[in-house]
């Protein structure tokens, strides 16, 4: 039962072949058996979940307020605020933090009758690509326990891949939904900047962060996007535009769809196995009647540098709020205010967060601002223009999601630059603010490979359609 998708389970719930209480119990029983190995969660909320499941069952019985997510167990990334439940961001500095309010997406999920089963592990404050930077514990890749699940939404991706949740939420600043989806063999979508409210998402890099769904297939991803999308007056960056019906855009007819293959992401630096899988996907799209062409986005060469100046700069500013005054950890070694700040932040933050605060503070500091931060903002314009040019000829662009399959735990832990370089295919998308999805498209050494499909701003429909057409004509999404 628990290996089914949300839309399959929805049908079973409506037909009363199963109950949400039964489904939720099964998910928790499975969590108990596999969680000691996988460690996808930071907090589990069984009691609240079973209560919510019973309410969902009543709604189904009385046919009141039934939505596609009524009674469906879902996991929330632990950088999204949940009223009355710990929100730690996998950081020691927030280890005991209980939010006084719900994030807008949490409110929306509660309103749809979804069953929140817990909060998932992440790289501390979402800074990382492997979930090894969690201040709590390391999460394992369900497909190979010696490998990382990717990051930063590694707990969410692992939970869905291991059937410890039917759906999960993630956040994506430089690839943090798409890359773990790719590494764990599931579907992950980063919507357009502004499409989903970030109210209650603990900020990392405010010009890049976006919330999105992790799911077992494209239909589920579309359903979860539907619930979360839309304008929110509480988030000044959310955009007041109508939300289309995403599920209606899921057709397998993609005849004439113009697909651009990004040249720079099929060259050196991308492993042969990954290239092979993407080339096979290209062939599949040709068979389906799409029109493929190669496009060049020369500024991609500069994307990693640009991102690793902008994101840490914004992070160094956002994380200034963790000062030990109003919430979170406070150092006991504090004779005056300034030592309290120093020691609180030294004790509370892990190495990657400290590294980025230092890098970002440096890039913004007097004498270096123009050379690093301003320069990066200008190159960001070039990257955005490259995409705009490509979208004049193409409806969507494709590339690998990651240059390699999941790497071994510890393999890149001591080399931050090599970890950063592995984000090459996902980072440009955040810099340009456009939407992109990762779907399974192959295997190498029994580890999944992800295909990334990128679209125009606010055109999630076309990337969903391209993803759905591929999925319905292949079996990769069923290989769990």
């Amino acid at each position: 039962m628990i290996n089914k998708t949300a839309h399959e389970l929805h049908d079973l719930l409506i037909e009363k072949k199963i109950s949400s209480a039964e489904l939720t119990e099964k998910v928790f029983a499975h969590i108990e058996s596999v969680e000691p190995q996988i460690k996808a969660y930071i907090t589990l909320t069984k009691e609240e979940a079973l209560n919510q499941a019973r309410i969902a069952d009543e709604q189904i019985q009385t046919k009141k307020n039934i939505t596609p997510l009524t009674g469906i167990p879902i996991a929330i990334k632990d950088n999204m605020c949940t009223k009355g439940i710990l929100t730690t961001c996998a950081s020691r500095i927030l280890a005991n933090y209980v939010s006084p309010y719900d994030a807008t997406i949490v409110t929306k999920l509660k309103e749809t009758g979804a069953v929140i089963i817990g909060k998932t592990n992440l790289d501390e404050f979402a800074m990382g690509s492997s979930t090894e930077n969690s201040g709590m514990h390391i999460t394992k890749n369900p497909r190979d326990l010696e490998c990382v699940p990717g990051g930063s939404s590694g707990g969410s991706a692992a939970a869905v891949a291991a059937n410890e949740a039917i759906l999960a939420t993630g956040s994506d600043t430089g690839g943090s939904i798409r890359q773990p989806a790719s590494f764990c063999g599931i579907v992950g979508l980063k919507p357009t900047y502004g499409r989903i409210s970030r109210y209650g998402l603990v900020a990392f890099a405010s010009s890049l962060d976006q919330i999105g769904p992790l799911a077992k297939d494209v239909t589920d991803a579309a359903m979860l996007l539907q619930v979360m999308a839309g304008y929110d007056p509480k988030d000044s960056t959310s955009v007041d535009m109508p939300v289309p019906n995403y599920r209606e855009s899921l057709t397998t007819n993609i005849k004439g769809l113009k697909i651009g293959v990004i040249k720079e992401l099929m060259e050196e630096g991308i492993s042969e196995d990954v290239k092979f899988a993407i080339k096979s996907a290209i062939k599949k799209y040709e068979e389906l009647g799409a029109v493929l062409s190669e496009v060049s986005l020369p500024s991609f060469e500069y994307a990693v540098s640009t991102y690793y100046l902008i994101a840490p700069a914004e992070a160094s500013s956002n994380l200034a709020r963790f000062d030990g005054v109003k919430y979170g950890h406070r150092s006991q070694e504090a004779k005056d205010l300034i030592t309290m700040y120093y020691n609180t932040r030294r004790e509370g933050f892990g190495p990657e967060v400290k590294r980025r605060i230092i890098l970002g503070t440096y890039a913004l500091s007097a004498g270096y601002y123009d050379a690093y931060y301003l320069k990066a903002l200008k190159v960001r314009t070039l990257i955005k223009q490259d995409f705009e040019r490509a979208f004049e000829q193409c409806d969507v662009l494709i590339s690998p999601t990651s240059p390699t399959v999941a790497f071994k735990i510890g393999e890149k832990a001591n080399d931050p630059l090599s970890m950063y370089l592995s984000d090459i295919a996902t980072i440009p998308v955040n810099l340009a603010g456009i939407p992109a999805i990762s779907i399974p498209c192959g295997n190498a050494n029994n580890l999944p490979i992800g295909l990334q499909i990128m679209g125009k701003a606010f055109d999630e429909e076309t990337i969903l359609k391209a993803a759905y057409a591929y999925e319905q004509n292949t079996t990769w999404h069923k290989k769990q």
Partner: protein
Amino acid sequence: MDINIDHIAHLARLGLSEEEKMTFSKQLDNILQYAKNLNKLDTKDIPPTSHAIPISNVMREDVVKKYKDIDVILKNGPEIEENMFRVPKIME
């Protein structure tokens, strides 16, 4: 490179151990060396992009709203005294 790590750590109010200072200096040096590739691009006439979509300030009426759950907020405070956050002394 010439990263004055003590100065930067002070700006960020971030305490670092001697070992961290050494490791971070080396790693940041590597990252900044790599980032120098940006200098290959002439960006003199390129405007900066701080947000991917056009964003303007959102205004609202300045109205006071009563907030009920003050206790829930105070509960997160490390040291509370009479509905206030207590901090160590701020001046001699």
